[in-house]
């Protein structure tokens, strides 16, 4: 039977199967590393423009300045991976500390007058709780009322910023208790505590996404929520938790920010959300969900911060600062796109 079949074949099969399916295991890994060449190029430029670039002081400075943005990006990355977005993180970083301090600071005696309802040591837990509650409120809007997440969190952003202005009367809060400032300004083992904390949280997050079932579930939820649901993943519940975690991380970023800069700035986080998205997306996280790693997001943060650092060291004229900043971002994007060899969309 087969013989006749062979005969009828117009052309005989000449060669055995070629290298038909050599595993290209690591394309996903490559994508995560696509900013590494960019960082390298920035490093070389930094080294050329100023000898100060490679000093320990400068590099630690860059990393420390990245911590608060980094934590926001961490939260946003988790949210984006699970297919949602939260713009309000930019306000949470400010309003959570303000609310916490408002509850704990004494009602009289300083420029900013709180309610003095709770002991001072509760400030940090309160702040984190406020952050988580904001995330949960976003979750309520998106998951229960099923309204559009972009607008809901944009409304939240405005509302929370307004709440902060209302409570603080637009002032920075300077009389921050020492306990609240500690984490943002302490040094541990020769580097700022904030750096260790931020790296630690990234590591925990990265490990959870790679090795925990609930972490891995985020990719499924972001990639195809219906398939995730059909596979028995509690999509809504996990999304809700992720949104709360995002708020919590933003609140924690607020604690570090407050310690780092010595006060709750009135404009704390103002306009950061673009940076947050930029860092996440340039680091390989998809706005459509289900794709990206925290390592990539971290390289995104460092890239953005290095650009600022190198430009400052290079003495770019202030008037053209922004222009060059934008150009570098576009060039970095193109480099990373060709380094990863993948089309983006």
């Amino acid at each position: 039977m087969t013989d006749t079949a062979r005969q009828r074949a117009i052309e005989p099969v000449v060669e055995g199967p070629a290298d038909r399916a050599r595993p290209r295991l690591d394309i996903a890994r490559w994508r995560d590393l696509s900013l590494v060449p960019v960082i390298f190029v920035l490093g070389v430029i930094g080294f050329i423009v100023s000898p100060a670039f490679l000093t320990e002081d400068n590099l630690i400075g860059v990393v420390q300045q990245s911590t608060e943005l980094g934590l926001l990006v961490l939260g946003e990355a988790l949210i984006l991976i699970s297919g949602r977005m939260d713009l309000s993180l930019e306000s949470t970083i400010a309003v959570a500390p303000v609310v916490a301090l408002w509850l704990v600071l004494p009602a009289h005696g300083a420029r900013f007058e709180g309610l003095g309802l709770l002991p001072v040591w509760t400030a940090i837990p309160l702040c984190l709780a406020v952050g988580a509650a904001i995330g949960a409120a976003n979750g309520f809007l998106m998951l229960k009322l099923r309204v559009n997440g972009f607008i809901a969190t944009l409304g939240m952003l405005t509302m929370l910023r307004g709440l902060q202005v209302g409570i603080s009367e637009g002032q920075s809060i300077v009389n921050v208790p020492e306990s609240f400032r500690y984490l943002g300004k302490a040094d541990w083992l020769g580097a700022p505590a904030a750096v260790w904390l931020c790296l630690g949280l990234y590591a925990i997050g990265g490990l959870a996404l790679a090795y925990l079932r609930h972490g891995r579930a985020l990719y499924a939820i972001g990639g195809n929520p219906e398939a995730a649901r059909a596979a028995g993943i509690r999509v809504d519940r996990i999304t809700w938790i992720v949104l709360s975690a995002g708020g919590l991380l933003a609140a924690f970023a607020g604690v570090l920010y407050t310690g780092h800069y010595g006060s709750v700035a009135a404009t704390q986080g103002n306009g950061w959300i673009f940076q947050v998205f930029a860092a996440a997306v340039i680091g390989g996280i998809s706005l459509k969900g289900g794709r990206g790693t925290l390592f990539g997001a971290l390289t995104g943060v460092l890239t953005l911060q290095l650009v600022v650092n190198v430009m400052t060291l290079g003495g770019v004229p202030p008037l053209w600062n922004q222009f060059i900043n934008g150009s570098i971002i576009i060039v970095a994007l193109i480099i990373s796109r060709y380094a990863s060899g993948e089309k983006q969309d």
Partner: protein
Amino acid sequence: MAAVEQPTAVRARRIVKRFGPTVALDRAQLAVAPGEAHALVGRNGAGKSTLVSVLTGMARPDEGEVTFSGEPAPRYGDTAAWRAKVACVYQKSMVVPELTVAENLYLGRFPGSGRIRWPELREAARATLAEYGVEVDPRTRAKDLGVEQRQFVEIARALSFGARLIILDEPTAQLDAGGIDRLFARLAELRAQGVAFLFISHHLQEVYELCDTVTVFRDARHVLTAPVAELPKEDLVAAMTGDTAGAPGVDSRAAVRAPVTRRRAEPGGEPVLRTEGLCAEGAFAPLDLVVRPGEVVGLAGATASGNTAVGETLVGLRRPDGGRLAVRGRPVRTGSVPHALDAGIGYVPEDRHRQGLVPGRSVAENATLTVTDQLGPYGTVLPSRTRAFAQRMITSLDIKTAGPSQSVSGLSGGNQQKVVIARALAREPSVLVAIRPTAGVDVKSKDALLGVVREVAAAGSGAVIVSDELDDLRVCDRVLAFFHGRVVAEFDSGWTDRGLVAAMEGIAERDTERATERDMAGAPGGARDATHTGHQGGHDGTGGRTS
């Protein structure tokens, strides 16, 4: 190659197409004569759909050339020019979900110039679809259509614009029997007008029925082209699989078939699945269903008969309006997938793209999505175990992939379906609920997959197959036929195609009439009676067995 070229509607020569390290087409060739109905067959991942993309200008081949009637093909990227040469129904859904049916039908080629006249367009769309027996309001958005209706929109689009060459990539995979018949009738008309077809299907019967010539691809290469009439089915299968003298293919089929005739559900065993009065308003009437260990129950029904809804309710995707559900005697909370899963109900969804796969994630991750709790201690998921687990699945289901870490998006359609089945089997379910489990799966794999379902049953679990494919239902010990949300008949394993099809289409034959009437009368016990009597062997005549 022949020295003298016959005129061809389309000819592809020495096409090479690579996806990264995967060679999807390796110097493949194909020629379709004008007016010819040409079949293209091959196992999953043989490169059929890739060739279709090349022939329709959707993919640029790495090497090789395509000609239409001897002229070189249009420039790559100018899809409008390609559309003038060839129309196509792709394997992947190519509708725009947010747009209306009418608009999807005329996508990219609105008649006339100037402004679009919507009322006329809708009327034309309604008429066109009516030819295929699809009665939908043309203003419905495509995403609100059922799978089959959506498929017909795509078919109608390809067929209705006067192309002289039409490519159909597994058009029947989503259609029920009636739909296939209407499609074939239409194709016959077009053939009479001299239109050439390239037809891809895993239903070899359809190839014999429709086509003149068949081309077989295997492992990215052209293997054979022959007149259909001269090629017995065994040879065709052998050419597809590359087996000598058809031995393993036949063997595996025998292995699948054997239990169908041999096995009997042992009566008296504690049922693995039992429903009492399970019902969903507007989808199906109260249903009492019992599945015993070792038993495979088929829920047969055409489009919108409610059988799919039953399946989705069993797995917790739909919340029923009433009724109870128990697995191995333990009640299961309805309307919750995690509870159903924990209780041991595995699920193969109907639409793998919508509910089955997470695109962009690896085969391993997709295959282990339901068992992440078993891949490591303390809620961890160890990559080594994941890989090992996935590798086992790849081997046992014969999934053609570059490895566990390949992205599922890069698999061929049939192999994607296997990944979805792997996902359901991963938990070793007590009951496997599979909706059209073999859609788009090649002959050999189909047998293998159904064999897997039988094995699951043989190991003491139960299985429910929701399908209108007789091949799927053939492995069942018992088949319930649904019509308009009700069980209209129950068949024991010895059913004939004619009887089952009649029941599915609501045409009560002599023997099924009684069951139907009883059910329609709304006696709550009707379905239950049928079920009870059914599993005992159908001796009392309620089973729709025709003789």
